[in-house]
């Protein structure tokens, strides 16, 4: 059996195997950058065992790893389904490790699976299986199944001294390759991270040598204005781009990959030895928040900045997230020109709460940012908005980002975030931020656009849409004419508060003068320019609120104070108690799609048909709570099954039945 499939299978069963959790968490290295906890007991508690086994059978899970001639159970895998399992990541600037720790229940059962067609070696006194390229290792003892793989870091292996040390070739300098004469590759592992690589024995695969000048000539020779595909085709048609060229390119990559695999395989074994001997220390259990019996999966990242900085060292955005932390003494000491985003730990988890499934997350920020974010993001929106959250709402998005507070915080955020990324220009960044601060009247702007917004999708409306038609004279000469017709379109309304509407009033006046706008009702304007969908947009300012919508009737109701809708309490509460809320009234989607005559693929028809049994889908954020930004995504599944997890498995099972 292939080791990668077994890993995948174990990953699947993780869902279904609590806790002697401390046993395995103590084996997670102390410096792990992230830890994912699988609360297997929670899976088992929420799932019906028979249904689970039936579903796994249907998707062919057992067929792949067990004898498919008899009925099987998840228990047959030999994995302890009552204890937590962990996946973690750690590493250095040269390699990032991803490890897995699975609790063992019955070693004999487990070995019966893995020994079917695998070559087992004894390494560190443990039975061990390697992947073909030896960059993935699985070992086990009576209590634990260990997995470890490694991801080589391109930024490290691209360094000239590193390439030289390990005999790696540059794929843009083919002369290196031509000079390499060797027959074998051997790497010796002395100790942690120290290698002696003999690259002088690589087979001489190609004799074709193309210099950079020649390549430049090829690129310059074809500066013809033609279709881009023609250019590519014509370049590829040239001799220099013939098969030999690619063979050589491919050979160099294979040479480098082979060497890297040998190096990573060596590091992997060293790391593994340290892991099982306890040299890597134990991850602090205090870091992971208490996991309830409803929590299926939990993710903890000590420092988001350090993690991204380590994984994306070359990336100017994500890689830089980690620079600040590295400046503060973490592993990547060399990254000193760091922008600072102030992100700290991240905790996320998936919970089953009856028929709902919830993904909640907590992202920590430093104290200064917490203070700024508390001032910027405020709960609730203009109370006058709530009347628009009526029973007909299909979906809405509310957010309140205080413009005045944001503009006040922006200069210091720019200065902190970016002055370090451009150290040579940091004084200019600071200067720019100061000018910004002096020039802007935050209070005045904050009055014009306060920052609270509500976007509501309210079902459908009939709208007059323009189209081009033809009229023929008696001699059949035709002229293009613009006609109109009524069409069903999604009705939306966007509103935001303004305590000083003078700028908008002036803009409307300019729009009218330039004929970008036309007044269709007292104080109600239509945007003359129509977009490609043909939807007409209307706007008006009423009682300190700017309204933008494609629903003329509703806009007329607002203009004439005839709005008599009332907000649904649960929607009002979500908008009122959060800094941002996105809510979808899932039940209404099937009807909406039908009325809009939106064609659905066969695979989507069944799913959409069931949506009227769903509850709401929501993503909400109460903003900063303590020192962290909290958010939550939740979906209410149909109540046809005992809980959300059972419903999800039922969907998978039914999908498989259809496929069969």
């Amino acid at each position, binding site marked *: 059996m292939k080791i990668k499939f077994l890993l995948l299978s174990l990953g699947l069963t993780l869902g279904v195997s609590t806790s002697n959790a401390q046993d395995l968490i103590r084996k997670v290295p102390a410096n792990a950058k992230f830890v994912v906890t699988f609360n297997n007991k929670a899976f088992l508690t929420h799932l019906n065992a028979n249904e689970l086994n039936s579903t796994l059978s249907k998707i062919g899970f057992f067929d792949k790893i067990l004898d498919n001639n008899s009925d099987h159970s998840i228990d047959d895998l030999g994995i302890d389904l009552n204890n937590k399992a962990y996946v973690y990541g750690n590493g250095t600037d040269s390699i990032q490790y991803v490890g897995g720790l699975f609790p063992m229940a019955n070693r004999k059962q487990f070995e019966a699976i893995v020994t079917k067609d695998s070559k087992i070696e004894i390494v560190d006194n443990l039975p061990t299986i390697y992947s073909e390229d030896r960059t993935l290792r699985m070992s086990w003892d009576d209590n634990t199944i260990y997995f470890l793989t490694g991801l080589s870091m391109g930024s490290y292996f691209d360094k000239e001294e590193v390439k030289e040390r390990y005999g790696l070739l540059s794929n843009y300098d083919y002369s290196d390759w031509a000079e390499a004469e060797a027959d074998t590759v051997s790497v010796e592992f002395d100790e942690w991270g120290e290698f002696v690589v003999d690259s002088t024995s690589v087979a001489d695969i190609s004799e074709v040598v193309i210099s950079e000048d020649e390549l430049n000539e090829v690129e310059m020779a074809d500066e013809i204005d033609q279709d881009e595909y023609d250019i590519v085709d014509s370049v590829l048609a040239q001799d220099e781009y013939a098969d030999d060229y690619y063979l050589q390119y491919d050979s160099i990559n294979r040479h480098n990959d082979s060497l890297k695999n040998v190096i990573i395989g060596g590091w992997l074994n060293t790391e593994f030895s340290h892991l099982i001997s306890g040299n890597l220390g134990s991850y602090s259990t205090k870091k992971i928040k208490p996991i309830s019996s409803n929590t299926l999966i939990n993710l903890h990242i000590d420092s988001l900045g350090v993690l991204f900085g380590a994984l994306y060292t070359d990336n100017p955005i994500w890689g830089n997230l980690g620079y600040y932390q590295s400046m503060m003494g973490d592993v990547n000491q060399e990254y000193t020109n760091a922008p600072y985003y102030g992100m700290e730990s991240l905790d996320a988890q998936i919970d089953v709460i009856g028929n709902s499934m919830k993904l909640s997350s907590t992202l920590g920020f430093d104290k200064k940012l917490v203070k700024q974010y508390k001032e910027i993001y405020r709960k609730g929106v203009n109370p006058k908005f709530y009347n628009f959250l009526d029973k007909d709402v299909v979906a809405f998005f509310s957010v309140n980002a205080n413009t005045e507070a944001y503009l006040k915080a922006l200069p210091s955020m720019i200065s902190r975030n970016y002055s370090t990324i451009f150290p040579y220009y940091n004084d200019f960044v600071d200067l720019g931020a100061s000018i910004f601060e002096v020039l802007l009247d935050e209070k005045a702007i904050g009055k014009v656009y306060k920052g609270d917004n509500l976007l509501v999708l309210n079902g459908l409306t009939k709208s007059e849409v323009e189209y*081009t038609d033809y009229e023929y004279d*008696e*001699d059949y000469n035709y002229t293009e004419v613009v006609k109109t017709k009524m069409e069903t379109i999604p009705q939306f309304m966007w509103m935001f508060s303004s305590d000083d509407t003078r700028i908008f009033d002036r803009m409307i006046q300019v729009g009218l003068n330039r004929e970008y706008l036309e007044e269709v009702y007292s104080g109600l304007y239509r945007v003359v320019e129509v977009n490609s969908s043909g939807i007409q947009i209307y706007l008006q300012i009423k009682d300190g609120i700017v309204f933008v919508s494609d629903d003329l009737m509703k806009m007329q109701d607002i203009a004439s104070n005839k709005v008599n809708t009332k907000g649904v309490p649960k929607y009002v509460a979500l908008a009122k108690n959060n800094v941002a809320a996105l809510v979808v009234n899932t039940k209404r989607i099937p009807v909406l799609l039908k009325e809009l005559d939106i064609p*659905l693929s066969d695979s989507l028809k069944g799913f959409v048909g069931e949506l009227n049994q769903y509850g709401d889908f929501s993503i909400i954020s109460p903003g900063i709570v303590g020192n962290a930004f909290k958010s939550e995504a939740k979906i209410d599944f149909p109540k046809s099954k005992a809980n959300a997890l059972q419903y999800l498995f039922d969907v998978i099972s039914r999908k498989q039945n259809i496929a069969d």
Partner: protein
Amino acid sequence: MLKKILFYFFLTCSTGLMTSCFDIVEEIDLKSNGSGAIKVTVNLSKSRTKVSSLMKLDKVDGLKIPSERDIRSEISKITTTLKKTNGISNVHSSLDFTNYIAVVSCDFRNINALNTFVKTLSAQFKTSLSDYSIYSYDAKSKTLSRTYKYNSAGQKELNKLKPENQKSLQNAYFTYIYRFEHTVATQKNSLAKVSSNKKAVMLKANVLDIVNGKANLSNTITLN
């Protein structure tokens, strides 16, 4: 003729787009010596809201929805083929993605150039267009013939659409207008009409009728 290519293109490549109404107008201005000009307009502006939505999708019911780039590429191929066709000149095309209107026009040296063009495009689109849409012009008798042979391939594609989508094709029309230097003596298609100045013939047929074989586009027009 060009209608066929574009119709086939839309039918096979973007059946989703056909779930709404559209117009195809083919105009031929024919001179007495058999040369002339053709202009084909595909107008989906009546369905622009739906077309705009559909073009944001990649596939509908397994049928690929062509992107703006795909359509530009196809029109580019058509004009390139036209320019290379012997007897065809003054090739122009335009695409309006606000109103969803496409126009292709060209001059032809003689009526056979149009038939060559049909064959060329048949080969390019791997269809049998040239089998069922052929033009001929006899300068001596001043007779223009359009031979139209029904092809059931379109109906097969149409049958793949849901009945409600087929219904919406009731508002899709194909129109041809042939203009001449001389007056029309006779024309043999009962669906077609002769203009009041007798110098033009127009036929407007429902696309559904054409695809189902209920409308025949054939005609023989004799000039004075």
